[in-house]
């Protein structure tokens, strides 16, 4: 069991890549930087594959497979080991992160070929991989937090990669600061966990939680508090309402960064946390409700903003926020496996969307405004076809990966044990909007007349190192959902079956988890049509498909058939359009409510008040006092002999009195 016993190798590989490129890469030719940067991640992926093979040989009672490497913190009762673990959830996350990460690294060699700071880019990207892998392989909250913070750091570094551009540097800061708010909640959550359970190790926490009852909806018990706090961190890291504002700005970073960090991996860390802590969440119904509501609202809200954006990357950014909302919705209604499933399929199709968008931008020589594109279908066919596949996937067209995952989530929202009709409607509406804006993106970019100067821009297909990852991802976006397919014809959902132990091991007794029904293989007691075919038909003709179709038709109408009608609608709903285009003015509201007052307080209270008056006052005051005292005392030495004599006499008298006092006390 080579790798299972040496899990750290998976972390060491990207870290070594980061260090090598960072320290030595400046003088190396690009090919060497590539070898190191892409090589380390590729090796990590191969190692992950081998790890999965070894994992498959384990027996059920050996899972989760935990290895502690050294005692990191030993502070009385608070001991934390650097320990890593592998279980089914880890395997899913590991493969997703490593695979997509590898593809994006390869892609970057093409996309960043003409950029400066090449070695720095790969160093940061490897560093990110290191932290992300730490995050998913951690066996306790503290090691995970190391990864959590580390990916935040890498995100900051990569968003602000072109740091000489003010908007990029600002975006990096914004990302870090906004997620910091969430991280505060997360930290308090970790502390609360330690307080309640006396440990931060997953195994120990879950073991103790198993004997705790489900908390009532009305009060906030310890489990609810912990879950809400951890979820606050997830809100920040996974860009949900109200802390989503950093993600659209993060598009300032290079497109591979947007693909890897802000679509496929880092932003999904919040979903991973919620799924990982499912034993706690299952016992805190109010927390689950909060998660579901936040997820559902965000899914819908963000989709509305995406409807009218003109920058291709911004559309995808809001789409990511929206899709993350779906993942949280899934977890919030108890369908953890569905949420993770959507996480995986989203990594494929959203990663693909971003990379393809990057290919478009590269082809257009840097243009990102869709209104200045058009008719690119025949000119960059590979990009077009892969992007088409991804769009179909995200819209939820039956057969592709996105269909299965989204469908499961919506089904759980509609009729699972924690179902909420309102949330189902929100999710459904969001799905319709998603379909609309994604097809809008496709049509504006690839169809219609060329709305750019064809002589100025020389449109060309991207090189192989960019198109091959696109094609590979397209394959997975196409077929990545087939594990779950048998469920629709009465078989088992293999994905859920695989993850079953993770979500069932500590499930509360008597509580139904959404998985049960699909695991049993049959439709369960809910449907009227009892046959397998009926189940399949229900899925195919279900509401998600209908709204996806509506979205497609609407987009086709507005952007292919009658493009002028888009203008007319815009004119009629001018105010609404402006609100959506300006993202509900949330950034401006935040600036007025929080940023400016904080700046004012920092400047006037803390800087002028505390720093200048208090601290400088003390620091300057002490020598000033000394100086004043000195100059006062100096006047004793007046040169006047008589005053000297007087002082001597007075001193002698004082001394005598003192002595007599002491003597008197000694005698009596």
């Amino acid at each position: 069991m080579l790798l299972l016993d040496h899990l750290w190798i998976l972390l060491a590989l990207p870290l070594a890549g980061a260090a090598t490129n960072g320290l030595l890469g400046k003088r190396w030719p690009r090919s060497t930087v590539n070898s190191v940067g892409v090589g380390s991640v590729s090796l990590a992926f191969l190692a992950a594959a081998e790890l999965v093979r070894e994992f498959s040989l384990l027996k059920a009672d050996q899972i989760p497979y935990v290895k502690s490497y050294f005692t990191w913190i030993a502070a009385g009762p608070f001991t934390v080991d650097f320990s890593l673990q592998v279980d089914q959830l880890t395997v899913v996350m590991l493969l997703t992160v490593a695979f997509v990460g590898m593809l994006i690294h390869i892609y970057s060699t093409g996309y960043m070929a003409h950029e400066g700071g090449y070695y720095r880019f790969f160093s940061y990207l490897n560093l990110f991989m290191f932290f992300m892998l730490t995050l998913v392989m951690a066996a306790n909250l503290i090691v995970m937090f190391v990864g959590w913070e580390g990916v935040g750091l890498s995100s900051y570094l990569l968003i602000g990669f072109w740091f000489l551009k003010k908007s990029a540097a600002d975006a990096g800061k914004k990302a870090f600061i906004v997620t910091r708010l969430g991280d505060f909640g997360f930290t308090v959550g970790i502390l609360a966990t330690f307080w309640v359970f006396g440990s931060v190790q997953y195994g120990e926490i879950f073991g103790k939680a198993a004997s705790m009852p489900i908390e009532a909806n009305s009060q906030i018990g310890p489990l609810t508090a912990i879950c809400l706090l951890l979820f606050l961190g997830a809100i920040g890291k996974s860009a949900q309402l109200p802390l989503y504002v950093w993600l659209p700005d993060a598009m300032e970073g290079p497109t591979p960064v947007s693909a890897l960090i802000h679509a496929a991996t880092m932003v999904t860390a919040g979903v991973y946390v919620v799924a990982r802590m499912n034993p706690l969440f299952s016992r805190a119904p109010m927390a689950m409700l909060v998660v579901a509501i936040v997820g559902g609202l965000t899914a819908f809200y963000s989709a509305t903003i995406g409807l009218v954006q003109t920058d291709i990357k911004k559309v995808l950014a809001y789409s990511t926020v929206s899709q993350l909302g779906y993942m949280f919705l899934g977890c919030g209604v108890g369908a953890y496996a569905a949420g993770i499933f959507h996480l995986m399929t989203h990594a494929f199709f959203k990663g693909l969307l971003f990379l393809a968008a990057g290919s478009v931008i590269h082809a257009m020589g840097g243009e990102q405004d869709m209104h200045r594109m058009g008719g690119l279908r025949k000119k960059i066919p590979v990009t077009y076809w892969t992007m088409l596949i991804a769009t179909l996937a995200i819209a939820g067209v039956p057969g592709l990966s996105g269909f299965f995952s989204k469908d499961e989530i919506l089904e759980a929202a509609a009729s699972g044990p924690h179902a909420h009709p309102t949330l189902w409607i929100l999710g459904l509406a969001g799905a319709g909007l998603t379909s609309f804006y994604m097809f809008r993106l496709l049509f504006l970019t690839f169809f219609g007349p060329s709305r750019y100067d064809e002589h100025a821009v020389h449109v060309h297909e991207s090189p192989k190192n960019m198109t091959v990852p696109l094609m590979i991802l397209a394959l997975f976006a196409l077929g990545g959902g087939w594990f779950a397919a048998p469920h629709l014809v009465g078989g088992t959902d293999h994905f859920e079956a695989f993850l079953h132990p993770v979500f069932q091991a500590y499930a509360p007794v008597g509580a139904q988890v959404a998985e049960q029904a699909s695991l049993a293989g049959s439709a369960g007691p809910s449907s009227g049509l009892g046959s397998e075919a009926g189940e399949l038909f229900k899925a195919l003709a279900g509401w998600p498909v209908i709204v996806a179709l509506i979205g497609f038709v609407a987009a086709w109408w507005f952007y292919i058939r009658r493009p002028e009608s888009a203008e007319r609608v815009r004119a009629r709903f001018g105010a609404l359009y402006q609100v959506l285009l300006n993202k509900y003015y949330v950034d401006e509201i935040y600036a007025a409510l929080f940023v400016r007052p904080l700046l004012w307080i920092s400047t006037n209270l803390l800087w002028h008040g505390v720093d200048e008056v208090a601290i400088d006052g003390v620091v300057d005051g002490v020598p000033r006092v000394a100086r004043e005292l000195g100059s006062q005392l100096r006047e004793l030495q007046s040169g006047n002999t008589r005053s000297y004599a007087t002082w001597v006499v007075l001193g002698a008298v004082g001394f005598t009195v003192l002595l007599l006092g002491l003597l008197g006390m000694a005698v009596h």
Partner: protein
Amino acid sequence: MSVVPISYYLVLSAILFGLGAVAVVFKRNIITIFMAIELMLNAVNLAFVAFARAHGQIDGLVFVFFVIVVAAAEAAVGLAIVITITHNRQTLNVERVNLLKL
């Protein structure tokens, strides 16, 4: 044993010392101040002798001996200084001798 209680001598010594201290503070002439210091030394001598008699120890007298000797040396040097100052400053007013300052 002395017929007169030793405490009487001590009181006298204290009075003389006090008068000497007053004179040091209030007089202006350097030489007068000097003499007042000598007065204080004498008062102390009286106390030493009294104690020597009271305890029957010779050490008090030895001390007095040394005080007188050192007082003599001090007087010599001190008056020499006074003469020097007077030659420089043409005055015996101690307030004019104010160069010993920062």
